[in-house]
Structures are given as structure tokens and as C-alpha cells.
């Protein structure tokens, strides 16, 4: 599913609504080194567009996003 990309950190934000997945992602990314990869799960359909925008604005790389059994999944590479 993740094309051989192994995440360094995994964050489950299922059940949380806007803007909590973004806030939690930011907190997690802040503690990660350049190049490390965060895998994030969200149940919020709005998160799809929001993580695209968040990554564009902050310079972090959205490597991949997909839907896994109704859960929105994201792979984000930390760019410092």
C-alpha cells in the first residue's frame, strides 16, 4: 500500500475533527528530523484538501495520500 515507504512515526487522528488533525500533525512534524516520514490516519474527509494545503504552505512534502477502508491516510516527509 505504501510502495515500500516505511514511516518513521505513525499518528492516528481518527475521530478528531478540523483543525485537530493538522495541529497534531504539526506537533509531530516539529519533533522530527529532516527527511523523516510521518504516516497519519484521519476520519475527516476535509483532511484531504487540508493536508495538501498544509504541506504546500509549510514546505513539507506530501508523498502520498490514499483512502484505506474509509480512513484517509497521508505520508508526509518532514522538510526543515
Amino acid at each position, binding site marked *: 500500500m505504501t510502495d515500500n515507504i516505511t514511516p518513521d512515526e505513525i499518528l492516528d487522528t481518527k475521530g478528531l475533527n478540523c*483543525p*485537530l488533525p493538522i495541529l497534531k500533525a*504539526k506537533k509531530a512534524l516539529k519533533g522530527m528530523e529532516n527527511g523523516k516520514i510521518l504516516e497519519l490516519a484521519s476520519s475527516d474527509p476535509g483532511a484531504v484538501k487540508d493536508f495538501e494545503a498544509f504541506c504546500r504552505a509549510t514546505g513539507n512534502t506530501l508523498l502520498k495520500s490514499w483512502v484505506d477502508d474509509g480512513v484517509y491516510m497521508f505520508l508526509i516527509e518532514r522538510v526543515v
Partner: protein
Amino acid sequence: MADMDLGNAKKMTIICTKGTLDWAYPPFILATTAAAMDVEVTMFFTFYGLGLLDKELNLSVTTLGNSSMRMPMMGMQMAMPNMVGMLPGVTAGTSVMMKNLIKKKGVASIEDLREAAVLSDVRLIGCQMTIDLFEKKTEDMIEGVELGGAATWLESALQSDINLYM
């Protein structure tokens, strides 16, 4: 704040004028999200918005005068007639219902969003004039609140990319 100033960072200010449970959300959601997107945020709390800086929050929402307010109930979108909304205890009941709905839907509480704002170095300015006007006590407010007036906000607003009034 000074050491956070990167010079080229985007900036935003929000004037918060309303202190009800529903209207507390837009400024805190935008402020915390902007901070997460590396925007330097200043929030200026004036008039009824100043209460959002109180240590103890007991926010309420009323259906009165809000003809577009509908709450999901038994699979329907229910409105409340103004006549009912004005009865004693109805505002408290509506507020409890709204808070339960907020919790059930995984929406953050205002307390949590405010804490997130503080932790992400959002600058919080309490309006000095409002404090004098309503005889508010600064010791009832959370730590880290700066006091200021129109000129304090303007200085910040003039350097900002986004200025919002809510």
C-alpha cells in the same frame, strides 16, 4: 515573541469581538491552524470577545435572534421558536446540547484550542478599554495575555498579510 520573529514569516491578526460558544470557534480554529502553518498570529480580544481570555470559561449559545440555527435531532434539522428560546434555562440547555454535540463529533473544545494557541506562541492581546468598561479583572485571565489598545493592534495589522474581524 521576539525570538520567533523570522522577519519573512507571514502574519495574521484577528479581532475577536464575540464571546459565545459558537462564535468562539472561527477565530481559535483559524489562529491555531495558521500557527501550525508557520504564520505569526496576533489575536485582539475586545468587547464580548474579551471573556474568551478568562481562566474559567463557561460559554453559552442561544437560539434567540438566530433564525438560521438548526440542530440535528432524531435525524432531522430542528429549529427552536424564539418564544421557547426565551424561557429560563433554555439557553443553558441549548449550550449543554451543543457541547455534547461538539464532543460527540470530535470537535475540539474552546479550552483545548486556546491552549493550542498559547503553546504555538499566538500573541493574545486583551483590550484595555474593555477591561475598564466592564470592570474586568486581569487576574481572572489566563497567563501570557498582553494588554493594549487600538494602536497596538494597528501596528501589528499594518505588518500583516491577513487581518480578520470576527
